[in-house]
């Protein structure tokens, strides 16, 4: 086509579009035979590494010390997403504020919801707090599909890993045996760790605790803790003085000493509550990689279980 034929802006736009099209193709299919996995959180990334080993390249969007509700849809995430073979998401609308626009913009058909390259981990896990009655935002920023912090139960970790092994095997059938072997190894190591954690938490079963946000129901259920109240009056709503007064009265009345807080919440309020009530603030890590001691899924529980046990031990 002669250059002279490309006239007017419409023509030039088409020419530009053609030029872009002839540029590099984005889906440089899993370079080096590795499947490219993008997990929305570091926990799901850690589980994908447990199962996928060196047959997968894994990256995570949210950091372990970041509130996964409020991740920003930065364009830099698109660079990984457009090359991804598999997106692993927490689901239950945890990522509602940022994953849909990222998937819309990444131009990668393989990882769109409902395709084989999109894995919603909540579908493999036991979900708590699924509202049975009416739901409204008078309850705060509720999750109508159930509590999305479900990865904080090792049984769910194993369930998610099992689901991931199946999905990875579908995407890369030649490595199915490898993924299965890694899953079995993870199952064995997790089982041993669970016996250790159960032993450590045994003296504290049934103990009452306060948490900042509704992030710990699965953890509490697994280790026999009772979460009786929250620093936030309702999910996503900052604490009011009236609520804090009631909370402190309850802690004194029921002799509750531990307040479990994620590192991304303001510590001043829980600390002043703890001072008033003679309790203590325990900054737990809700996700893998939140600090250097929580480098993988098992170490995350090692860390949290030890902190909780120590806190409940001292306030006996």
């Amino acid at each position, binding site marked *: 086509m002669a250059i002279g034929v490309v006239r007017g*802006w419409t023509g030039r736009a088409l020419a530009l579009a053609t030029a872009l099209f002839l540029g590099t193709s984005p889906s440089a299919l899993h370079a080096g035979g590795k499947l490219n996995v993008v997990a929305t959180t570091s926990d799901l990334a850690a589980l994908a590494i447990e199962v996928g080993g060196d047959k997968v390249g894994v990256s995570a969007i949210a950091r372990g010390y970041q509130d996964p509700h409020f991740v920003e849809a930065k364009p830099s995430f698109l660079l990984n997403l457009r090359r991804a073979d598999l997106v692993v998401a927490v689901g239950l609308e945890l990522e509602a504020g940022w994953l849909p626009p990222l998937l819309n913009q990444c*131009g990668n058909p393989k990882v*769109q919801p409902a395709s084989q390259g999109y894995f919603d981990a909540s579908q493999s896990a036991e979900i708590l707090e699924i509202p049975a009655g009416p739901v409204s935002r008078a309850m705060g920023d509720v999750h109508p599909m159930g509590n999305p912090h479900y990865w904080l139960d090792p049984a769910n970790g194993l369930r998610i890993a099992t689901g991931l092994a199946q999905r990875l095997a579908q995407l890369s059938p030649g490595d199915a045996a490898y993924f299965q072997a890694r899953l079995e190894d993870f199952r064995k190591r997790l089982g041993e760790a669970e016996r250790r954690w159960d032993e450590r938490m045994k003296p504290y079963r049934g103990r009452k605790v306060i948490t900042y946000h509704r992030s710990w129901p699965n953890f509490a259920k697994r280790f026999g803790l009772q979460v009786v109240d929250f620093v936030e009056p309702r999910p996503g709503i900052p604490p009011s003085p009236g609520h804090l007064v009631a909370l402190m009265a309850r802690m004194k009345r029921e002799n509750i000493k531990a307040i479990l807080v994620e590192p991304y919440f303001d510590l001043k309020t829980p600390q002043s509550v703890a001072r008033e009530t003679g309790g203590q603030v325990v900054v737990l890590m809700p996700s893998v990689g939140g600090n250097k001691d929580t480098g993988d899924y098992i170490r995350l529980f090692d860390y949290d279980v030890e902190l909780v046990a120590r806190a409940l031990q001292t306030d006996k």
Partner: protein
Amino acid sequence: MKPSPTILTAILGSAATVCAQSPAPPAPAAEQLKVLEARIRKLEEELQALKAIRPAPSAEPDQQPRPDETPVRLGGAGGAAGKALNPDLSLIGDFRAAVGHDPVRQEPGLENHEVELGLSAVVDPYSRGDVFLAFGKDGVEVEEAILTFPALPGGFSAKVGKMRAEFGKVNTRHNHTLPWTDRPLVTENLLGGEEGISDMGVSVSRILPAPGNLFLEATVQVFRGNSEGLFTATRKKDLSQVGHLRGYHDLTENTNLEVGLSYARGHNELGSDFTTTLRGADATLRWKPLQRSIYSSLLWRNELVWSQRELLDGTHASKGFYSSLEYRLNQRWTFGARYDRSGRAAEAGLVDRGWSALGTYWMSEFSQLRGQYRSTWYAGGQRAGEFRLQLLFVMGAHGAHPF
């Protein structure tokens, strides 16, 4: 599992033996008992032998119900299940109040500025639809109605429909996602008013190959050529074009820089022989510490626009810009300031200036109250000072946060 023919024959055979032996001659009770015991033993032995030749049952045969044993479920799902495919609904209210004096941008003291109804759904495996209907002082209008094809071959994505054009940063935003109660002077003066460039058209985007972790994206859009106050298509072929190049880089985990270049060209109200050309540049610096993202952040945004409008007395060249700073002090309060300066598109040489101070109180993620003091020096010596209040609320689907 069906019994094999061998097993059936064996069972029938042993039954026949029992039957054949039963009409035996009468005997004393004790002897009869012995005979019966012997028979039972024999039957038991036969039973053991039969068990031995049966194939070994699979491990844990009764742990799980076999698929053919699960009860048949009759009928489909009821209740609300049929509504699961309805689009996600959201409704956003934008109420405003103003006190003070502004001779140019005259707005009522109390106003239902806009109620926006949003409907979003995945249309089919290839596309999604997003429709936003605005109910405001001018009646009902389709603010945007977009069919998006997020993943076309070759890494392209496309949008078709009535949409806000990809010109700069603020033009793509709906009112309720802005950090201010108004639009900058440069939008009012050079981009045709509050609506900005908004038209029916086709948009194609693609992420471009770039070195390192640089993100580059190009967007090319072709519109019908009608955008209120800016472009007018008097003939079918008076299409308008918009192009946008976007670059983004993470400077650190907490800080990032985004820059953009924009271009727009269309015919103006004087007819097909008169065009308006806009060029834009934007730069945004964001700081948001990941671990404290809900408590603290800073955003500094700047946009420049150059306008060339062909009029009867020649080409009028004007430029305008704004610079805006937003700071989140805590979970509930955001403060900001904006400086505006813009020429007028059709009256080159006349320049309006202004500044604003803002405070936003976030009752929750779903409702905010915003106050803005806006001071303006219009060209020709007119002076304006206004205090504006805005109440925003969201009902329904949790929309994505704009970035």
